[in-house]
C-alpha cells in the first residue's frame, strides 16, 4: 500500500514483521454512529457511492425502507430499518447504518490466506487491498459481522474502507461529511468514546435507561461504534450481534493447526527418511526368486 501516512501494523498471511517503529502517537481513529440521532435519510449511502465510485444495481422494493436489500460489493454501507414495538406498545423505528466495524482483532484478516490482501493500519482502520485478493471468500467466513462481499465481476472482496484515503490526508469519511444531523461523527477513539458518554447521559435523562455504547470487547473493540437506545438488546437493530467474536472454528482453522499440521507433515517425511537410512529398503533378493520357483514346482 502506498499510503505512507498510514502505518500498517498487521498484514494478512504475512510472516515478515510489519513496520511498527513509528507507532500511532496521535491515537486511533473511530467513527461514532449515534443511532438515536439518525433520521434515515441515506445521505451517507449516497456519499459513500460518490466518493468510492460505486453504483449498485437498481433492485426491487422488499417491503422495507432498507434499500438496497443488503450490503454488496457496490454498497459498502447500508441503513437497516427495523420496526420495533417496545414494552409500552409504542413503535420505535430503529435505523442502523451497517458496514464494516473495523475490529481491533479483525476476523477477516485472520482468515485471509493472501499476503497483504487485508491490512490494519496503526490508526485502527482495516482495509482490503483488492489487487492482492485471490477471491477465496475466507474473509467472509472470518467476519463476525457478515460484512465482506465478493464481487461477481472480479471475484474480489469489497467493504467499507472507513475512507482510509480521505483519513490519510486529514479528511473525515464521506458518510460523516454528508450526515445532516450529526448522527455520524469521526475523530480519535478517545474523543468518540467521550462524546458517546455525553450522549448516553443525555439519553438516560430522557428515559432511555438502557442507552449505551456498542464497542464490543469480543473483537478487541471496534473503530466504528454505535450509540444505541437499547444497548442491552443490540439484536433489535437488524441483528447486530450481542457478543461478537471470531468464531472458534475460524480460530482453530487459522491458529494452532497451521504449525501443528506443518510439523506433523515434515515429521512424517523425516521419519520416512530416517527409517530408510536406519533400517533400509525392503528388497527382493535372488533367494526370494528361488524360493518362489521352488514353491511353484511344488504346486505342479
Amino acid at each position: 500500500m502506498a499510503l505512507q501516512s498510514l502505518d500498517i501494523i498487521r498484514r494478512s498471511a504475512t510472516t515478515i514483521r510489519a513496520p511498527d517503529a513509528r507507532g500511532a502517537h496521535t491515537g486511533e481513529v473511530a467513527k461514532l454512529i449515534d443511532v438515536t440521532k439518525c433520521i434515515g435519510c441515506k445521505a451517507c449511502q449516497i456519499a459513500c457511492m460518490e466518493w468510492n465510485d460505486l453504483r449498485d444495481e437498481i433492485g426491487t422494493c422488499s417491503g422495507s425502507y432498507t434499500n438496497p436489500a443488503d450490503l454488496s460489493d457496490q454498497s459498502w454501507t447500508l441503513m437497516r430499518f427495523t420496526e420495533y414495538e417496545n414494552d409500552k406498545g409504542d413503535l420505535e423505528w430503529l435505523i442502523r447504518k451497517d458496514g464494516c466495524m473495523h475490529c481491533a482483532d479483525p476476523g477477516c484478516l485472520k482468515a485471509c490466506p493472501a499476503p497483504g490482501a487485508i491490512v490494519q493500519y496503526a490508526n485502527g482502520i482495516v482495509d482490503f487491498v483488492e489487487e492482492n485478493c485471490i477471491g477465496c471468500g475466507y474473509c467472509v467466513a472470518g467476519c463476525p459481522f457478515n460484512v465482506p462481499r465478493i464481487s461477481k465481476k472480479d471475484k474480489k472482496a469489497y467493504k467499507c474502507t472507513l475512507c482510509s484515503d480521505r483519513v490519510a490526508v486529514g479528511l473525515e469519511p464521506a458518510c460523516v461529511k454528508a450526515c445532516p444531523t450529526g448522527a455520524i461523527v469521526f475523530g480519535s477513539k478517545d474523543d468518540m468514546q467521550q462524546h458517546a458518554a455525553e450522549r448516553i447521559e443525555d439519553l438516560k435523562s430522557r428515559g432511555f435507561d438502557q442507552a449505551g455504547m456498542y464497542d464490543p470487547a469480543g473483537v478487541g473493540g471496534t473503530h466504528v461504534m454505535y450509540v444505541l437506545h437499547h444497548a442491552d438488546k443490540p439484536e433489535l437493530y437488524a441483528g447486530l450481534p450481542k457478543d461478537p467474536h471470531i468464531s472458534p472454528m475460524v480460530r482453530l482453522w487459522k491458529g494452532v493447526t497451521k504449525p501443528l499440521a506443518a510439523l506433523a507433515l515434515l515429521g512424517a517425511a523425516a521419519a520416512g527418511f530416517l527409517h530408510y537410512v536406519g533400517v533400509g529398503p525392503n528388497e527382493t533378493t535372488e533367494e526370494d526368486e528361488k524360493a518362489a520357483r521352488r514353491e511353484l514346482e511344488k504346486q505342479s
Partner: protein
Amino acid sequence: MNKQTADSVNASTGQIVRYAPSTRITHWLVAISFVLLALSGLAMFYPPLFGLSSLFGGGDTMRAVHPWIGVFMVVVFLVLAGKLHRHMRIQQRDRQWLRQIKDVTANREENLPEVGRYNAGQKLVYLVALLSLIVLLFTGLEIWRAYFTAYFPIDITRFAALLHAFFAFVLMLTIIVHIYAAIWVKGSVRAMTRGTVSYGWAWKHHRAWFRDVTKGSLK
C-alpha cells in the same frame, strides 16, 4: 502381442502383471491431481507457502482451478476405487499384520501372516484416502464460493473450511506414508509404472496372492 491383464502370469519371463494399464493410468491421474491440489491447498492454508501460487499463474487462478482439479480427482479416484474396492476389506489376518507392525517396519516379513493382493497398510491407505476424498468433496463444494457457499449458513461454511483443511492434512499424511512405502519396498514403483512384478517379489510380499495367481501356471 503384449497385452497386460491384471493377475496374468508370464512363465517365460517370471513376471506377474500386478496392475493393468487402465489401473496405472487412473492411479497416476489421481497422483498428479493430488500433487496439484496439495501444492495449491498448502499455498492457501499456510502463508509461508503462498509462493507456490506462482506455479498456478497467481493466487486468483490457483483459487479458480483448485476446485475443478478436486472434482476431476474425485471422479478418477472413483474409477480407481471401482477396480480396487473389492480387495480392500480388512480381514482377520490384516488385524494380525497390524499387531505385528514392528516386524513390518523392521523388514521381518517372514514373521508376518501371509498377505493377499494387498496388505493391511495398503488397505488402510486406500480406506483413509476414500474417506478423506468423500469429506473433501462435500466440504470443498460447500466452500466453493463461485457456486455453492451462498446456499449455506455461515457457521456451516466455517465448519466445512475447518473439516476441509483437517481432511486435507489427513490425506497428505497418508500419502506421505504411501509414497515412502513405495520407495521402501523395492519393486513397488515398477509395479505401478510398468505393471509387472517378479515371482520373488510377489512371493515375498503378497504370498497368498502369488499362490492364487500362479495356481496351475506351470501345467
